């Protein structure tokens, strides 16, 4: 869109609180979260919706914030890893990642946690297959996936 194009007002729920912003039509959600709200837990990596590092939950469902336009948050609820970390009900999930050493560099961890949260919200007792399927779109390049799957299994048990 031409540079002079008017900004779009966006009111949404961000990590449980009301939020407001005016965004350029082409601004991806990740730039709003990191740039305007300082929520740097959301990571940009492949920038092509492949790796999952930029995943956030939009109305409870994972989306790639690197590509989703920020205006798509209008009227919806966005959850980032900061919101998950502040949510006591999700504490067993983050603790299980620590207990199982389910990360090394940690760059994929925010996306993994959010994908796992979306799964556990829908299915509190997922099978190993279901966990692998739900996390299959999130790429980890150092830990490998075994510990991550085990962490989600442990979290599911603790949260039931």
């Amino acid at each position: 869109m031409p540079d002079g194009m008017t900004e779009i007002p966006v009111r949404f729920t961000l990590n449980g609180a009301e939020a407001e912003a005016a965004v350029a039509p082409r601004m991806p959600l990740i730039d709003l979260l990191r740039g305007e709200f300082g929520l740097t837990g959301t990571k940009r990596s492949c920038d092509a919706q492949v790796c999952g590092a930029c995943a956030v939950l939009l109305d409870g469902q994972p989306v790639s914030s690197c590509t989703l336009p920020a205006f798509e948050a209008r009227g919806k609820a966005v959850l980032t890893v900061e919101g998950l970390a502040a949510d006591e009900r999700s504490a067993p999930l983050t603790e299980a990642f620590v207990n199982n050493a389910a990360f090394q560099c940690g760059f994929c961890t925010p996306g993994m946690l959010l994908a796992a949260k979306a799964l556990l919200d829908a299915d509190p007792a997922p099978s190993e297959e279901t966990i692998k399927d739900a996390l299959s779109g999130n790429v980890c390049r150092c830990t490998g996936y075994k510990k991550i799957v085990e962490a989600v299994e442990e979290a599911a048990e603790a949260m039931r």
Partner: protein
Amino acid sequence: MLLAQESGAAALYAGGTELLLAMKSGLLAYDALINVKSIAGLDAVAADDRGVVIGASATHSAVERDALARERLPLLAEVEHSVANARVRNVGTLAGNLCFAEPHSDPATLLLIYEAELDAQGPSASRRIPVGELQTNSYETSLAPDEMVTAVRVPPFPAGMSGAYSKFGRHHRPTLGVAAAVAVEDGRVADVRIAIGCVSPVARRLPRSEDVLRGERVDGLAADAPALREACRLAAEDADAVADLHGEADYKAHLARVFLERTLLRALGRNGSGGDA
């Protein structure tokens, strides 16, 4: 209407999972995007007299989870779950997948054996397009610049027909997709539909392979049966595989042969189970 006015400077935007990537990388540029999702009612998945009508704003996730689609089109629901990753499925639409005409599409291949149709709406007229007539080449469709798809109409398989779909690949998108459905009567193949995609610019039905199998006794169709081998050999020829980043033409022709055999045997194995998946 808006699309007609903007002539060429505007594009339809549904989930944007293709369009915005292409714009980010500078492959496409538009002054304006028209949001398909802002048109009321296009996100529905509903029944019509022939089958299931999937609105242009319905995402892959919506189709995969929809009760009606799962009941009447279980194979489509199963394949929709295998498209991309959960994030792309939550945002990307089935109609957007077809309209982008990317050669490596799962639904473009599968919907050929469902004999699906698209509703297209222009400024003054609407028409039905058989799914096999939408895509004309890589990234090219038969849609007019001021036409949009409003729905994908998918009839269930006829009673007694079961289907299977196989995809293979090591990239984000499939290198090969094969769809097959078989109806058995009195121990013989009464009807069969076969489609192949991703190995050439446009997915296609394989009528010569279908003809070889029609009328064959089912109990004779083990893995090395002559009719099955001939159908798969013809598929490797008729697929017209081309070389691209996913591999050489010969390699893809080989994949076509191997995967058609597996897919047909799975479709036959599902026969009599009462569902299309």
